[in-house]
């Protein structure tokens, strides 16, 4: 398994990033964690609909997104808030979406991130089509699709991998193997040696990387992205990580996994190892940490305030976003729904 930074913060190998880059990756992971913690709290207060926390997967998500360029496509899941944010999806819209408002899916025109996919498996092929279009148009844009270990059991995973390989689309398949598909452990999901091995079935390069090592993830995804931009086709990356929290705020992990397993992974925390590394190089101190957390917290509070200030949707809204032009049928139903009819 490809890894560069050990859990204790020592380094395996020369790092492909500068100290400044390390610091900003760390800052991003801190901001993501603050978002995750605030979201959990808000959900408990009833201010958000069900929320799927990514605690423990910050390195995987920030590292992957850090390898992308503006304009690249991203198709991720309900658990990829950190990845989507780093790729340009504003916190405020992610939060608005989580309040249960479709307007949260209206990402800015200059950001090519898709609204998070709620169905498992269906969105990977979209990143194949998106990348295929860029290839046909001759741009150097690529598409990254993020998904979990469980998603690799869906037939759509197979079709997406195969289409990408057959048409040599510039697609990066980024799998966050976080150990569980809700209550189903990855060992029971498949009998392949590793998930990365599945790439062999498609003649696609596949690598297994320490998903809690932000620099290793960044390096692996960058290599895959470079290959894609160079016209060398798709790649598959298995980032081995762990979901420290519940599947969603509606889930009770106590029913299916041991606290000891969680504790073991807590000790592999993706933020802590970078903190130690930075500290050792004199680039971290508690003051800076405090500052990072406060600034992140402020930005997210602003986003929350913005999202919660958005007036409730109008009864007519849902009719007006079905088609570019509402059909007569929808016009009629909107009238009826809004008392106009």
């Amino acid at each position: 398994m490809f890894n560069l930074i050990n859990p204790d913060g020592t380094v395996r190998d020369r790092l492909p990033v500068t100290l400044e880059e390390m610091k900003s990756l760390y800052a991003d992971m801190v901001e993501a964690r603050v978002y995750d913690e605030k979201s959990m709290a808000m959900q408990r207060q009833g201010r958000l609909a069900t929320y799927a926390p990514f605690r423990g997967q910050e390195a995987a998500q920030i590292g992957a997104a850090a390898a992308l360029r503006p304009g690249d496509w991203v198709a991720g899941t309900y658990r990829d808030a950190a990845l989507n944010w780093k790729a340009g999806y504003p916190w405020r819209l992610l939060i608005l979406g989580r309040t249960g408002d479709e307007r949260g899916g209206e990402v800015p025109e200059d950001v090519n991130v898709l609204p998070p996919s709620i169905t498992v498996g269906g969105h990977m092929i979209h990143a194949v089509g998106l990348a295929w279009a860029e290839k046909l148009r001759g741009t150097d844009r690529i598409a990254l699709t993020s998904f979990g270990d469980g998603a690799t059991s869906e037939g759509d995973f197979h079709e997406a991998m195969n289409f990408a390989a057959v048409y040599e689309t510039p697609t990066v398949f980024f799998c966050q193997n976080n150990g569980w598909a809700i209550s189903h452990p990855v060992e029971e999901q498949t009998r392949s040696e590793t998930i990365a091995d599945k790439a062999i079935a498609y003649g696609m390069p596949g690598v297994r990387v320490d998903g809690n090592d932000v620099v290793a993830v960044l390096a692996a995804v960058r290599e895959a992205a470079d290959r894609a931009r160079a016209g060398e086709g798709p790649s598959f990356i298995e980032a081995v990580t762990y979901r420290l929290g519940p599947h969603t705020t509606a889930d009770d992990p106590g029913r299916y996994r041991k606290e000891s397993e969680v504790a073991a992974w807590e000790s592999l925390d993706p933020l802590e190892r970078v903190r130690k590394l930075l500290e050792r190089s004199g680039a971290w101190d508690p003051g800076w940490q405090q500052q990072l957390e406060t600034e992140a917290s402020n930005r997210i509070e602003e986003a929350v305030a913005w999202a919660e200030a958005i007036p409730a949707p109008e009864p007519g809204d849902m009719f007006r976003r079905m088609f570019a032009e509402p059909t007569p049928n929808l016009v009629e139903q909107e009238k009826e729904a809004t008392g106009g009819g």
Partner: protein
Amino acid sequence: MAELNIAQAINSALDTAMAADDRVMVLGEDVGRAGGVFRVTDGLRAKYGAERVADTPVAESGIVGAAFGLAMAGLRPVAEIQFLGFSYPAYDQIVNHVARIRNRSNHRYSAPMVIRIPYGGGIGAAEHHSESTEAAYVHIPGIKVVVPSTPRDARGLLLAAIEDPDPVIFLEPIRLYRAVKEQVPEIYYRVDIGPLRVEREGTDVTLISWGAMMRETRQAATILGEAGVSVEVLDLRTLSPLDRDGIVASVEKTGRAVVVHEAPFTAGLGAEVAATIQERALYSLKTPVRRVTGWDTIFPLKRSEHHYLPSVERIVTAAENALED
């Protein structure tokens, strides 16, 4: 007798069926260790073991297709699809294989299996978690579709479905799982697949619904009743095959009907009910059959779902309009 809600009644039916017949097994995502995302299969794995209560990979087509093979080989699988919106990857297996093997083999093979699927909105869930596309299954020949709205029917219909020699889709009204409790017999009993249930007798207007919308329909009936209207309420319970005689008998008496569902309006099952009534009871009809349904939109997210789901008011108004003619 035991005081059970719908989730408990289903759990109890599964327990009873597995105890009575060792060919019965349960498979699906998170049905084992977790006991199902709605806890409907809670305790079954502990009691019957991981072989008879199998957690599966996230692969709906595989779940239904494997259950189909298990059934053809003589077992009685009860497959769970986590939400109706996640049944679509299995649509091909259901339509092209499960519903067809008896016809394809002229009775040599059959698929005695049940597909349990929670459906419907009202809990502020994420996209795809509030679907009510029963019509897309009712239109398919070769598979039966049932949906209970009470604990007693839930237990009896599920036991009947598991015994049925042919495949049955068993829809479970998510927002009623824990909403109603009633005394349910603990013995082995069946609620026949087919006949609707006249839940309330009346002579002025017939309210027709099923599953989760029965709650609003009942409330509307109460309001109308208090206003002096004699309301008949039908709970279809079985959506395929449809109890046309039961529907027609009621409308011939009342001359007025309102059909209520949360699925989109166009080509929803309400259309079949209305078409049937005008076909067989046109001259008894004093006024058009009203359809109170979801809109032809995507089921909206939490902040808008109250704008989408048919309200008690809409049902009452439809009935009042019917009564004015």
